[in-house]
C-alpha cells in the first residue's frame, strides 16, 4: 500500500484530506498540534517540521508521496516564528524529499500570492508574477514558499511536484483567513469598493489535492471553485452584515491596531477587499477532469457563522 505523508495534518484541511486518502493509502501525519480521536488508519506524529525528528520520520517511514499543508497562515504568532516555520520548514521538507526517495509532492500554496492590485487582469493564469509582497509584506513568506516549491518542480524533475494555488477556501470546518473575516460580527469593507471574489468549498479543495496526487500531476495550478460574486454578495449570503469604512481613515487605524495585536489582519489585507484577485482554473481543469461539486450558494450555506 502506498504511503502518504501529510504535514499540518491536524488542521481542518489536513483532517479532511487524511480522511479522503485513508481508504486507499496509508496516511501518516506530522503536525505540531495533536489530532485527538484521529481515525484508526491514520498515524499522527507530533513533530516540528524544522526539527531532526521530522527528518527521522521521513527516513524511517519512507513515504511515497508528501502533501505539504503545514503552514502558519494567520498572524497570531510571532512573525519570526511564522517565517521560520513556513520558509525554513518548506526548504527542509524539500531537501528531505530529495534525500529519502519521495516520488510525488503536492504543496498547497494560495491564490493570495498574486497580490491584489488595481491593474490585475480578471482571471489571472499561473504565469502571472507573484507580487503580493509589494503591498502585503506580511505574507511574503508564503510568496517565498510558493517560489521555492515552483523552482523545485524544475530543479528536481524526478519528483513529480505540484503547487496548488486555491482561491478563498470556505466550508463548515476550515479556519481560513477569509472564513474568519466573514465570521466577524460586523464585516468591514472598504467604502466604494466591491471586487469580484471566487470561493472554493473545503471538500472540493480536498478532492483537488487528492486528485493531484492520484493523477501524478506536475506543475503549478490555480484551483478555483464555481464562478465569482461581488464581495458584498458573499457577505450577505454568509449571513453577515457589512460595515463600510472610508479607507483613508481606517487603513492607518487598522495598521496601528494590527501592530498592537488588537486586530487580526495587516493593512495589506485590505487591498483584497478592494481589487479583484480572480484566477483562471483552466490549466488545472485541462490537467485532470475534477470539477467542483459545490456551487456558490452551497458553499455559502454550508459555511456556518
Amino acid at each position, binding site marked *: 500500500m502506498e504511503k502518504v505523508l501529510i504535514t499540518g495534518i491536524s488542521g481542518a484541511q489536513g483532517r479532511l484530506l487524511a480522511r479522503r486518502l485513508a*481508504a486507499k493509502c496509508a496516511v501518516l501525519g506530522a503536525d505540531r498540534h495533536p489530532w485527538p480521536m484521529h481515525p484508526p488508519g491514520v498515524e499522527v506524529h507530533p513533530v516540528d517540521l524544522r526539527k531532526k525528528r521530522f527528518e527521522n520520520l521521513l527516513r524511517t517511514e519512507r513515504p511515497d508521496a508528501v502533501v505539504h499543508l503545514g503552514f502558519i497562515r494567520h498572524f497570531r504568532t510571532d512573525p519570526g516564528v511564522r517565517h521560520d516555520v513556513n520558509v525554513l520548514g518548506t526548504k527542509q521538507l524539500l531537501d528531505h524529499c530529495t534525500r529519502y526517495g519521495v516520488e510525488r509532492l503536492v504543496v498547497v500554496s494560495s491564490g493570495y500570492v498574486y497580490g491584489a492590485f*488595481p*491593474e490585475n487582469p480578471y*482571471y489571472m493564469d499561473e504565469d502571472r508574477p507573484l507580487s503580493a509582497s509589494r503591498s502585503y509584506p506580511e505574507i511574503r513568506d508564503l510568496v517565498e514558499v510558493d517560489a521555492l516549491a515552483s523552482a523545485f518542480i524544475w530543479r528536481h524533475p524526478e519528483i513529480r511536484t505540484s503547487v496548488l494555488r486555491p482561491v478563498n477556501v470556505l466550508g463548515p470546518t476550515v479556519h481560513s483567513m477569509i472564513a474568519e473575516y466573514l465570521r466577524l460580527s460586523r464585516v468591514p469593507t472598504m467604502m466604494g*469598493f466591491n471586487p*469580484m471574489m471566487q470561493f472554493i468549498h473545503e471538500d472540493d479543495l480536498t478532492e483537488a489535492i487528492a486528485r493531484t496526487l492520484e493523477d501524478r500531476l506536475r506543475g503549478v495550478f490555480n484551483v478555483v471553485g464555481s464562478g*465569482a460574486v461581488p464581495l458584498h454578495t458573499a457577505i450577505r449570503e454568509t449571513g453577515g452584515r457589512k460595515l463600510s469604512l472610508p479607507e483613508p481613515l481606517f487603513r492607518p487605524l487598522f495598521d496601528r491596531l494590527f501592530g498592537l495585536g488588537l486586530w487580526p489582519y495587516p493593512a495589506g489585507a485590505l487591498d483584497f477587499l478592494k481589487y479583484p484577485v480572480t484566477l483562471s482554473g483552466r490549466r488545472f481543469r485541462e490537467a485532470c477532469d475534477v470539477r*467542483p461539486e459545490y456551487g456558490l*450558494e452551497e458553499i455559502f*450555506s454550508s459555511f456556518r457563522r
Partner: protein
Amino acid sequence: MSESLDATGREPPSSKTRSPGRGVLGADPFADPTETDLAFDPVEALEARQQTTATRRPVEGAPSGGAPPTVESGAEAARQAGVVPKTVRRRASARTPRLREIEPPDPANVFERFLSDDERRRLAALEHLVDEDAPYDALGFSPQVARTAFPFFYGLYRFYFRVESEGHAQIPGRGPVILAGNHGGLLPLDGAMTVLDVLLHTDPPRLPRAIVEHWAGTLPWVNVFYARVGQVIGTRENFADLLDHGQLVLVYPEGVDGIRKPVSQRYRLQKFHMGFVEEALRARAPIIPVATIGSDDQTPILYDLKSIARWLGLPALPITPTFPWFGPLGLLPYPVRYRIVYGEPLDFTERHGPEDAKDPRLVRYLANQVRRALQRLVDRSR
C-alpha cells in the same frame, strides 16, 4: 469522495440536492462547475457541459447497454439522444436576439415610461448579455445596475449633449470588433456617449466594453460603477479575453494624453498606445475608427499643472475657464453638441495574421494607419 464525506457525516451534494435559487444569486448562475472562469464562450461551455452531463449520470436513451458511458461516447450519445439542451446559456453579444424578437418590458420606473418601445427593448437586451437570471457576468457587469443608470446617461445623451451620430452600419452585428476613438474633455463622457450610441443603434443591440485606465480602478465607487455597467479596467489580458469572446471593445488609443491635452491641441490626436493593434491582429478583429466631435470643447484645458498633479497622484490638474475658480462645479462639462461618426473598418486580417503581432515595426506602421484614418475622420466630421 463520497466515502470521506460520509465519514464526516455530511451529504455529498449532487445536482439533485442543489438548493433552488433564492433570488439573491439568481438561480445560482455559477453552480455549474464548468462555468468557473470567463464563461462567455457558448461553444466551449456547451462542450464542457456535455462532458459533465455525460460523466455525471448515464444518459437516458443512450445506446450503450448498462455500462457507464465514457466521456466521449457519452457526450456523443447525449447529443444524439437530444438530452443536452441546445442552448445552454444566453451570453455574448453574438447570441443576443434581434430587436424584433424581444418583448418590450414594462417600464421599471418613472423615467422608463418616457422611453420608446424600441429603447426599452434595447434595455431588455442587456439581460441577454449575462446568464439567465444571473445578476452578474464574470467581469461584474450587472444588467440591473446598467438599467438603473440608463435614464441618467440617456438624459445626457438626448438633452445635454444632444448627440447626433452616423455610420452605424459600419459596426458588424457579431464577432470581435475594436472601436478606436479620439479622446477628449477631461471627464470620459465621450466614452459613455459612444457606449450609449452603439447600444441605441445596433441590431442586435451590442454593448461596447470600454477599456478603462488603471487609475479608475483605485477610485472608490467609480471602479464598481465601471464594472457594473460593463466597462473593464484595462489590461492586455482582459482586452484579449474580450476579443476572444466576440465582444465589441471600445478603446481610446491616446489614453489619458487625449483627455488632458490643452485647448491648443483640440481635435489633434496625441501619441497612440499601440497594444490595441497587436490585439486586433491576434484576434483577427477589424478596427473601426470612431470620431467624437464636441468632447474637446466640453472642458477647454488652458493649462495643465503637471508637476502638482504628479505630486498629488492625479492624472491631470487643469486650469479651465471655470476651474478652479468655481470649485468642483467648474469641472462640469459645458453643454456642447456631440457628433459621433463611425468610419470605414480597417481590416488588416487579409494581409496580416496573428503572428504579425510580434513585429513591432509593422504594429507601429498599422497603428499609424489607424491614427491617420481617425484623424481624417475627425477633420472631416468637424
